């Protein structure tokens, strides 16, 4: 567990006062994987959408019925060949960071902080009520609340499925069993597309929550340390016990 907590002190004359607490929430491997994965996910989605532009359909080629005309401005790579280069380069970074992250979590025991288990089930509904503004804020003893754990666990599964559907499209013969599992080549391509939107949905929710939780929370993914409970009046003698 990476819950090392320290108290931050400030010298005031001869005395030392505690002005804040800091929790070491994100070990270095997690931070590195997080940012590499975030960057590669951005590139994968952008280049993937450029690849999609080459045949924006899930039906037959003749006659071709386009699903949507994705604007080029929101795509990466400029042309099909360029987008494939980005996609086939960053997919390795995406896979590597995913594997290192999962491996680190399992090996270090840090997964206990993130993994959604049966024990988190009772906490789900109170948290949903709180988020939807009709319940009190549940007491939170752990680093992540049940819904956060659920989101972070789901996104790992999503990431793994993205890679598997990707391989089913890229290597439908060498990994014919994968393509078969997904319902064939066409379905694998469709799943890959649907899962990408699910992933982008997570990213959107994640960003909203990061904004709501403020600067100290955001910066913790860079420094590892999350500062909580600044005692703003701590400099006044006797203001805290």
């Amino acid at each position, binding site marked *: *567990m990476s*819950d*090392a*907590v*320290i*108290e*931050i*002190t*400030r*010298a005031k004359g*001869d*005395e*030392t006062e*505690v*002005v804040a*607490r*800091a929790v*070491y929430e994100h070990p*270095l491997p997690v*931070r*590195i994987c997080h*940012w*590499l994965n975030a*960057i590669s996910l951005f590139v994968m989605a952008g280049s993937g959408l450029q690849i*999609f532009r*080459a*045949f924006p*359909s899930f039906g*037959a*080629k*003749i006659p071709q019925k386009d699903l949507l005309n994705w604007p080029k401005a929101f795509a990466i790579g400029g042309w*099909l*060949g*360029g987008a*494939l*280069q*980005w996609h*086939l*380069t*960053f*997919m*390795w970074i995406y896979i590597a960071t995913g594997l290192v992250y999962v491996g680190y979590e399992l090996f270090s*025991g840090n997964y*206990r902080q993130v993994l959604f288990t049966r*024990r988190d089930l009772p906490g789900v509904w109170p948290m949903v009520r709180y988020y939807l503004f009709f319940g009190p804020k549940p007491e939170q*003893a*752990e680093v992540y609340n049940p819904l956060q754990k659920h989101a972070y666990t789901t996104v790992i599964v999503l990431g793994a499925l993205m890679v598997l559907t990707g391989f089913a499209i*890229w*290597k*439908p*013969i*060498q990994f*014919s069993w994968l393509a078969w599992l997904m319902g064939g*080549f*066409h379905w694998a*391509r469709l799943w890959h597309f649907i899962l990408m939107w699910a992933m982008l949905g997570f990213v959107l929710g994640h960003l909203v929550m990061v904004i709501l939780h403020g600067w100290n929370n955001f910066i913790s993914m*860079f*420094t*590892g*340390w999350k500062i909580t409970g600044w005692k703003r009046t701590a400099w006044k003698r006797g203001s805290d016990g």
Partner: protein
Amino acid sequence: MEPDETKATGPNKIAGEGTPRQEGQPAQENQPPAMDDSSVAQPSSGQTSAEPPRILNPQMAERKFAQVSRRELLKLAPLLALGAFAIPGAQEWLLKKGLGFSDWASALMFRRGHLATTFADSALTPFEKFPINDYDVDDPGVIFENWTLTVTGLVKKPGDYKLEQIQSLPLQRQNTRHVCVEGWDAIGRFGGTRLSNFLNMIGADTSARFISVTCADDYYESLDMATALHPQTLLCWEMYDRPLTREHGAPLRLNIPAKIGYKQAKYLTDLKVTNVLNGKVGYWEDQGYSGFYGL
């Protein structure tokens, strides 16, 4: 990173160097009760429950904490190396390397004996709906009477081969999926002879690395030897049990179910067995597409 000493708790005392670590820290004892669900890092939990609760948070001076945070932040600095992808010259080089790595991995994943799925006749894309793709013209105007396949390179019997000679080799028909790099696919019925049969006929050195072909429309392609020897790789002169039509590559094309569409060159005129491609991998490849692109 070694566990650091951070037990300094006295007034004005600055905590030890570096970052406090989780294992065995006194901090563990001052945590909310629900944290006890962790089965690790609580070696003395049996005893602590008997003792009165102590408050033993390690402390760190504000300035020191700022230093520690900054150091942690700097550890992420190597990630800035990804910024190289934003530099135009470096970007091209890096993406080429990435694509090269993918091609290398693809060659490793390729299994020579592993067959592409074949389909029932009912699954075939109707012939008139089988897409026609070319980089230039549907019909480069091959004069069939004069047509030969010119064989050069590492072969015992180089020369010009007539279509009848090639068609004297065993016929193989297969219903396989044709996958285009654009994302569409179609299931077609193809007929011809295994490329390996023809390589045998011309006495090709199958320890060579590549087969390269050129076409009547100046298209050119190359194929790794492992895929060339795959049992479903055909020198193809039939589609849907009829001779190839001009727009599908008459009189002779490649049909390679284990490769992406653009590698399956049409209107063949020359075939070479070689160890070097001299930078000419294929028409699309030389513009930045994958050179191996096995499926």
